[in-house]
């Protein structure tokens, strides 16, 4: 016995340590390495949200708890929680998201990033929200910069930046699945799975969605998406992140009896691939090199009857369509470092190639492209304990356009430990999208497709970028004891050179809508956010914006000069979101979301949308069993069934909608 004990006690530890060589699965005993060994820097500066008191811009963060509590069924709808943001359902699937109005169905003045990848469409300049190859369930948080930030994010960051972060692969455990059913024949199912190996984390998800759209429209959708995101660690200080995704949709489009937009089915496919290499250095600086590729492919050919378009024409069949392929390649290098303890600098350079190919939408009926180079720098200087100064500059060299500089300066005065005043000024550009610059939307004779029979849209030969000057004063106050966060912003935006497509109705002109610079607008107002979170289970969130806009745009060019329209109604006076959410100890959750948007004129295919108020309600109950969770939830949108017209279109009547969801999480 003593011998055996001595053997097992003395030699076993060493032998067992030896076994660890043979088997990687054996857990090493705790040693000094656990105390003194190196670990990867997980919460790097890039991952941390900047404290609001020190940020050069107003930001709104929508986290997963808010996304779930909102009961929203798609990503774009969640953005109505952002003060000053309007979200319209253009049809059953497409959304237009804008900050303080002044837009059509393709809100083009916003930079939208998914995990650092710019997703606005190079063709339209807008975002095909329903086509993003990610599911709402994949979204971890949405961080919105309210106001221009081209100095940090490039030319489309004109009115704001929407930063969507998907769930980190290291943060997804086991299997998650849900099924949803409800109004408008909605059926969807989602599944995700997290895989973890030493040094490697991977998340995979897939979603199937379909619904019949608005009852009075042909806007049904049938869509499947797959998303993958992973990270491989080479060393504690370097890793490679990779992501890829695709979505394939069949969409109903057009209107019965509309000679230009006949009823039809379109196939829209999109996919992306992304690689990011991160390297952290001992001095705290880091290097990030990113490459990605986006492809959006729309197959939407249809025929028109010339006689229905113009009774003087014979009943010839014309071929046209919205078929296009748009691609983007983007490479960016970013380096961040602190030259002194009080100064932080981020700088870098990028190259981008955007191209659109289409048989009916561009003049050469083949492909148009634009290359762009950019160099940027941001510096943050903690000049004193109570003063932070920011300066940023983006220089963009656009093919055929020249060089443009977008600067931004800001100063934050921290008047107390929990409060700050911010003043900032920014100047930014938005470059015309490829269709705004090279568009030539025409219909061709079916009998001889070389003959252009009808031109619907084209572009002026010289289009300048839109310009914005923005000024703001912000006040941030936290009351940590009460769990209250307050954020107030007074702003003024001056936008000119706006790109519009007025009709050409003067003698000798073709009756065509032509993209050109033809308007300007100003908006001034207040954005307020109040957040009350006394504990983890309770949230009261209020976002309120009051805005006063004025502006004009050329509607039609006639012999007697341009017809100019007043566009003051393009921004609602008030936009309000109030979200209340409470979790109870026994697995019950109740949340309600009140939205109010004042009168607003949507341009393009949209119309005048009267002020409306809508209340959504979500009830949920979850059960935990042996490491698994089952959750049942019901969402009633527009609970009171006070129908209103989305996007100002009669056929987009939004009444009460009910959805039920069953979700299962197993670890």
């Amino acid at each position, binding site marked *: 016995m003593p011998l055996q004990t001595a053997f097992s006690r*003395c030699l076993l530890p*060493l032998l067992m340590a030896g076994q660890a060589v043979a088997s990687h699965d054996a857990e090493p*005993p705790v040693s*000094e390495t656990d105390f003194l060994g190196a670990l990867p820097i997980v919460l790097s500066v890039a991952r941390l949200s900047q404290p609001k008191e020190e940020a050069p811009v107003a930001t709104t963060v929508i986290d997963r708890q808010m996304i779930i509590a909102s009961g929203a069924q798609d990503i774009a709808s969640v953005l109505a929680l952002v003060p000053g943001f309007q979200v319209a359902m253009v049809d059953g699937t497409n959304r237009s998201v804008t900050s303080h109005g002044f837009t059509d169905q393709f809100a083009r003045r916003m930079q939208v990033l998914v995990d650092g990848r710019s997703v606005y469409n190079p063709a339209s300049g807008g975002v095909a929200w329903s086509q993003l190859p990610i599911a709402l369930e994949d979204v971890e948080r949405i961080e919105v910069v309210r106001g221009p930030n081209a100095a940090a994010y490039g030319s489309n960051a004109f009115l704001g930046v929407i930063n969507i972060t998907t769930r980190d692969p*290291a943060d997804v*455990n086991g299997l998650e699945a849900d099924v949803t059913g409800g109004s408008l024949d909605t059926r969807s199912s989602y599944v995700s799975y997290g895989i973890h190996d030493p040094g490697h984390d991977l998340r995979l998800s897939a979603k199937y969605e379909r619904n019949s759209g608005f009852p009075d429209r042909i806007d049904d959708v049938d869509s499947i998406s797959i998303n993958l995101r992973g990270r491989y660690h080479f060393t504690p200080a370097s890793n490679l992140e990779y992501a890829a995704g695709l979505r394939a949709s069949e969409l109903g489009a057009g209107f019965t009896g509309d000679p230009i937009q006949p009823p039809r089915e379109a196939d829209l496919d999109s996919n992306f691939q992304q690689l990011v290499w991160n390297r952290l250095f001992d001095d705290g600086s880091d290097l990030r090199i990113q490459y990605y590729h986006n492809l959006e492919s729309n197959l939407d050919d249809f025929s028109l009857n010339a006689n229905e378009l113009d009774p003087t024409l014979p009943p010839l069949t014309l071929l046209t369509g919205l078929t296009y392929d748009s691609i983007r390649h983007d490479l960016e290098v970013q380096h961040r470092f602190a030259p002194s303890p009080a100064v932080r600098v981020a700088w870098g350079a990028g190259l981008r190639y955007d191209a659109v190919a289409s048989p009916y939408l561009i003049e050469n009926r083949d492909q148009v492209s634009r290359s762009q180079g950019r160099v940027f720098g941001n510096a943050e200087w903690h000049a004193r304990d109570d003063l932070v100064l920011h300066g940023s500059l983006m220089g963009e060299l656009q093919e055929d356009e020249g060089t443009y500089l977008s600067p931004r300066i800001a100063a934050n005065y921290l008047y107390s430990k929990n409060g700050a005043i911010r003043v900032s000024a920014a100047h930014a550009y938005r470059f015309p999208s490829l269709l705004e610059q090279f568009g030539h939307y025409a219909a061709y004779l079916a009998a001889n497709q070389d003959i252009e029979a009808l031109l619907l849209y084209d572009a002026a030969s010289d289009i300048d970028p839109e310009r914005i000057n923005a000024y703001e004063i912000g006040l941030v106050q*936290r009351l940590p004891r009460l769990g209250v966060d307050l954020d107030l912003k007074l702003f003024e935006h001056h936008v000119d050179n706006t790109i519009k497509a007025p009709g050409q109705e003067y003698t000798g002109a073709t009756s065509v809508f032509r993209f050109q610079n033809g308007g300007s607008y100003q908006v001034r107002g207040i954005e307020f956010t109040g957040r009350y979170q006394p504990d983890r289970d309770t949230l009261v969130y209020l976002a309120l914006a009051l805005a006063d806009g004025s502006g004009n745009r050329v509607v039609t060019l006639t012999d007697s000069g341009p017809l100019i329209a007043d566009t003051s109604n393009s921004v609602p006076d008030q936009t309000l979101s109030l979200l209340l959410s409470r979790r109870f100890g026994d697995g019950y959750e109740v949340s309600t979301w009140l939205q109010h948007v004042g009168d607003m004129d949507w341009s393009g295919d949209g119309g005048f949308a009267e002020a409306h108020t809508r209340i959504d309600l979500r009830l949920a109950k979850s059960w935990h069993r042996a490491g698994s969770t089952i959750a049942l939830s019901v969402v009633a949108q527009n609970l009171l069934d006070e129908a209103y017209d989305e996007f100002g279109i009669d056929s987009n009547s939004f009444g009460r909608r009910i959805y039920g969801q069953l979700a299962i999480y197993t*670890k």
Partner: protein
Amino acid sequence: MPDRTGKTVMLMRGPFTALVFGMLALFSAVTGTAGQDANVLVVKSIDAPIYDEVVAAFSRNLKALCTPNCTIGELSSITRDELFATPDTDLVVSIGRLAGLAVAEVKPDAAIYGLIPRTTWNEIVSCCPETSPPHATALFLDQPIDRQLHLIRVLLPQARRIAVLFGTHSISRLEEVQLAAERAGLELVSRRVDDSDEVGPELDIMLDDVDALLAIPDSTIYNRDTIYGVLLTTYRRGVPVFGYAKSLVDAGAVAAIYTSPEDVGRQLAAMAADYLSNDSALPPPRMPSEFSVAINKRVMRSLGLPVPSEQTVHRQLQELER
């Protein structure tokens, strides 16, 4: 880390066998060291910067404290041949787990085991029962649990409930942590994790209603592969993590109390000098009396927490221990 540790062990087994036999030879030759100068032998686990730092601090401090004089011999796997040339030894000081296990095998008359966690001391004691006070003592890397809880109280005065994950290597501390939490007026929410794969799911479950996560050293739970999940999940839930190592703070924990290699060397030197000058018995194993505080200001600010300076917190902790 398993592969790294594994490789190290593979390299070390041969040399350490030689070392053990060499030292046995040495100590059987040493019979009563009636010398004027004390002979101290420092044994490092391997030649690596951290061990060298500890040894440098130890030697520097011991030379200043030792009267009339100390001769300090140094030994590592690479220099094991020098073992036979080492003069009579009054005290052996081991630096690191592998060095400690090797030294314990030869049962020196007096040994101080440094740069080891408490779990390694348990390994040593259970391995070689003769290795116990008054012949042996240790300076642990672990901080007293009360000190770690004080850190939470100082940085997070509103905290009421703290989460702690226990694994195979730390479950034995459950009761100790439970009692300390009660003393600190904190409610402990604990879960057991037996496999690295369970860390994420268990955290997900327990983070719903806690104010902080206290990390207790356990290689099953906190290692290079799990740390991403731990820190991202807690950050997403707005739960600050309190650690035991500076590297954890660099990675994204909000704060930690730790002993730097310099601290370890200095305290080992004081223990050695005390033993050699008084010719007294070795004291019982102890936790470090000197410690450093590391705070991740960016993460604290990002979580909306007020950020005091490391010096202020250090001072407050010292006052609390007085």
